[in-house]
């Protein structure tokens, strides 16, 4: 008994260390991007105003560039609109009826955005009272940025494309073969697209966009331009691309609501293993 007591006395620090590490590791294993984001939303409800002030100060010096970007975006959209409206076969009153639109857009501002970590998140100043909810996509201009994973009344947290857990599908702008989009956790200007079938006619310089498989992103949203390609085991391509979105200056973003999201995902969930 005395020996046991002496032994425990000698190693009790190590025992406490192992016990605490087991607790921390089990926390780490059980956490997911969703549980993490819920914590961020809770912290935001306390510090949201402060974070917003800090982010405003940071982006103040970038206002000129942001205004130029928004002006360019307006010009592109006006040109597109003019092209569409010249089509006399379309009933424009019906077209503009908001109840029939497949996607609707909610403007928002970024109040916090990280990009130096492995798993980055974006906090925006719109929440459930503004109609923002889980799985809506976040775009800057016409480029992909991330998607919402949780919302409080006035704020939402989105998973950034610069997050190693971010997943969606992509394809060459005029192609039919798709690949998996991901981030390597290092370079904030680059992402990867992997497992594109070898039959795809894909080249360096091609533009990669979102596919119609996604329930979160509208089809054709720009992701990046292919910079290098590698054929793996003579069966599929892995490629590295430079991203269109500049994550260092995110300010004005759009939240996209896909109206049929719940109908589509509910239908898919009925089939086991879909």
């Amino acid at each position: 008994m005395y020996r046991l007591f002496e032994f425990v006395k000698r190693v009790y620090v190590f025992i406490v260390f192992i016990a605490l590490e087991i607790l921390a590791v089990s926390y780490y294993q059980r956490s997911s991007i969703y549980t993490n984001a819920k914590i961020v939303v809770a912290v935001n409800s306390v510090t949201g105003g402060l974070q917003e002030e800090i982010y405003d100060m940071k982006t103040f010096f970038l206002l000129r560039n942001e205004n130029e970007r928004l002006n360019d975006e307006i010009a592109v959209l006006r040109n597109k609109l003019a092209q569409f409206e010249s089509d006399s076969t379309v009933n424009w009153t019906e077209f503009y009826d908001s109840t029939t639109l497949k996607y609707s857009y909610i403007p928002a501002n970024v109040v916090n955005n990280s990009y130096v970590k492995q798993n980055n998140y974006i906090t925006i100043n719109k929440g459930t009272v503004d109609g923002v909810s889980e799985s809506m996509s976040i775009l800057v201009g016409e480029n992909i940025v991330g998607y919402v994973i949780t919302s409080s009344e006035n704020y939402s947290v989105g998973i950034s494309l610069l997050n190693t857990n971010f997943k969606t599908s992509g394809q060459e702008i005029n192609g039919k073969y798709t690949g998996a989009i991901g981030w390597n956790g290092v370079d904030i200007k680059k992402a990867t697209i992997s497992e594109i079938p070898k039959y795809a006619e894909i080249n360096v310089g091609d533009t990669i966009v979102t596919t119609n498989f996604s329930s979160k992103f509208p089809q054709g949203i720009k992701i990046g331009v292919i910079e290098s390609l590698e054929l793996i085991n003579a069966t599929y391509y892995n490629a590295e691309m430079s991203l269109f979105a500049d994550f260092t200056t995110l300010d004005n973003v759009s939240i996209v609501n896909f109206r049929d999201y719940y109908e589509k995902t509910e239908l898919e969930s009925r089939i086991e293993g879909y």
Partner: protein
Amino acid sequence: MVRFIEYLALYILIVFLQMILFDNIQITGYLNIIIYPLFLILLPFNTNRIILLFLGAVLGLTADIISCSFGVYSIVFIFLGFVRPFLLRLFVKTDLEDSPAMPVSGVMGAASFLQYLFVIMFLTFVSVTFLERLTLDYLWVAMLKILVSTVVSSLIIYFLQLPLNKLNKNTWI
């Protein structure tokens, strides 16, 4: 009691600086400034080892909540709390081991303090990076990120602890 309040103030200051200032300095994707370990670094030489472990856990939990990385910082800072006495033994004169003084550059000597600091920061960034990535892909780029972040964060911590030298000389030795 006074000392407890001083360390509590130090803890709040470090967390506040990290959250308000350093989490918002994002110059490049290769640089991640972390100053949380400064709190564990500056705990008195003779801090009880069990207290070190629990303070590591509290600091880790705080960092995890702020950084949205549940568990990662807790694992790393509990580990730092465990290895800190061994590191101090490596870099400090034996007569300081049981001292209630604060391990700052003025007490340890600039060279010893920098070695102690650099090893702690390197361990922090290696563990945080690989626990978040869980892959060895892009290893060289990850190592570059670890190195840049370690050097810059260590230098920032070095300059942050300089004012404490004076305080330490006046009150804690």
